[in-house]
């Protein structure tokens, strides 16, 4: 990285941090306040399900494709979820074409964990022939505009897309189409750690100020279903507890949006 860039980053961080010390964020939000969230579903007719989620300027589209395939040997009675994230270079001046790097791997795996561990999709209903043939559910995360917090936008888009997914049984000559059985609404809340401050739903300028974050995903009953501390920092216990409280609370708010999908 060039020196100039480093200096600009430093100045930006100082600015963000200075504000936080005064109890403010650069865009005037409260520390635990999300930008406006919009969810639009069914936008890709050729996909089995799809959703475009925007959080402020951040936009992520998730498309669901399904096809019959072989089950894993140790779970012959369950469908399979495969989650993939592409940080296509269209979404940010810093993304480059190429195979997934560690950040997109982490993004897809954390989103996947939230869906999987909350058992949001009833995989036992996705068996076509036990041990032989089950439904594969491809969750493809496609970032369009990265203005911060791709993680929560991707999670919301994933569950929104699943909620509107129709299993394409007719196309494969295996009975009638039916809605994908979704039984929980996992919601992830990401908190950026800048110095000693934690702020939810970071915008890009806040992300430039620190690489450190923690994502906590909770289910409809406030259980924690996935956590990921990311970044080279040390987190105190007290702060973790606070973030956990906030995450549960904010997830409840965002879950309301899902109920309207």
């Amino acid at each position: 990285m060039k020196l100039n860039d480093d200096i600009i980053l430093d100045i930006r961080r100082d600015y963000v941090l200075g504000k936080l010390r005064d109890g403010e964020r650069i865009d005037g939000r409260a520390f635990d306040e999300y930008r406006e969230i919009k969810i639009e579903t069914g936008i890709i007719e050729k996909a089995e399900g799809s959703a475009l989620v925007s959080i402020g300027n951040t936009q992520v589209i998730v498309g669901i494709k399904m096809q019959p395939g072989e089950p894993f040997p140790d779970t012959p009675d369950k469908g399979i979820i495969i989650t993939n994230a592409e940080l296509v270079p269209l979404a940010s001046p810093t993304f480059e074409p190429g195979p997934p790097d560690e950040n997109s791997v982490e993004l897809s795996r954390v989103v996947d964990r939230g869906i999987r561990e909350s058992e949001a999709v009833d995989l036992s209903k996705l068996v076509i022939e036990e041990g032989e043939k089950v439904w594969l559910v491809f969750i493809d995360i496609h970032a369009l505009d990265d203005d911060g917090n791709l993680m929560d936008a991707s999670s919301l888009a994933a569950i929104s897309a699943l909620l509107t997914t129709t299993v394409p049984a007719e196309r494969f000559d295996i009975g009638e189409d039916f809605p994908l059985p979704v039984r929980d609404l996992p919601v992830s809340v990401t908190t950026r750690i800048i110095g000693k401050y934690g702020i939810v739903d970071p915008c890009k300028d806040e992300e430039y100020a620190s690489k450190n974050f923690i994502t906590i995903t909770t289910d409809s009953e406030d259980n924690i279903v996935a956590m990921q501390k990311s970044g080279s920092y040390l987190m105190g216990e007290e702060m973790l507890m606070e973030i956990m409280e906030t995450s549960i609370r904010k997830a409840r708010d965002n879950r309301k949006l899902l109920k309207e999908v």
Partner: protein
Amino acid sequence: MDSKDIKLIIDGKRLDGRGFEDLRPIKMRVGVLKRADGSCYLEMGKNKVVAAVFGPREVHPRHLADPIKAVVRYRYNMAPFSVEERKRPGPDRRSVEISKVSREAIEAIVMKELFPRSGIDIFVEVLQADAGSRTACLNAASVALVDAGVPMKGMISSVAVAKVDDVLVLDPMKEEDNYGQADIPFAFFIRNDRIESIALLQMDGRVSKEEFVQALEMAKRGAMKIYEMQKEAIKTKYIMESEGEVNEIE
């Protein structure tokens, strides 16, 4: 290309009710992405594409820079969910070829010499693909370049002509592409509101020379219609923007 037994023209109309020289519905929105320097969302029938332009900016790694002119990249990419059967992420041979000929069309009209050592990147994502996605992408890219303020000699407007059931039709949709007799994607260079020359031309199928000449004329008329919409979309954005809003053209 395969004629099979499928009839594509019934009672002088196409399967979706269009006349031979009707375009599919087109929708454009300019400036839809915040992080890109220029952007355009475009629908052309069931095609849904987004184009983003970055630059002129520094080239990484630096040894790829050209001391004389800007280096142009163009990446045509299909989302895994954009097609009937899920597409594996990453470039395949088809998208490598489309990216190449599309980049060359764009390079021919961008004033690269104004930006030595710089890079101009055009990334186009196909969110949903129907026939003609490369033409839809070029139309979106052209508008996104204007949105980014990249100096150009003119505009690119692109449309295909197909031969189906022995007649020529403008802007073929999926069935016409799959079961037709020929597909000819064109992109034209338009300056001062008139078509000057051809920026992209590919063809597969089977047509006589005479049919090709007709196809070319049909494509030119179609491209001019698209061009008017592109202009309108750009204008609307800039007029609206002063009032703080982004508008949609249909």
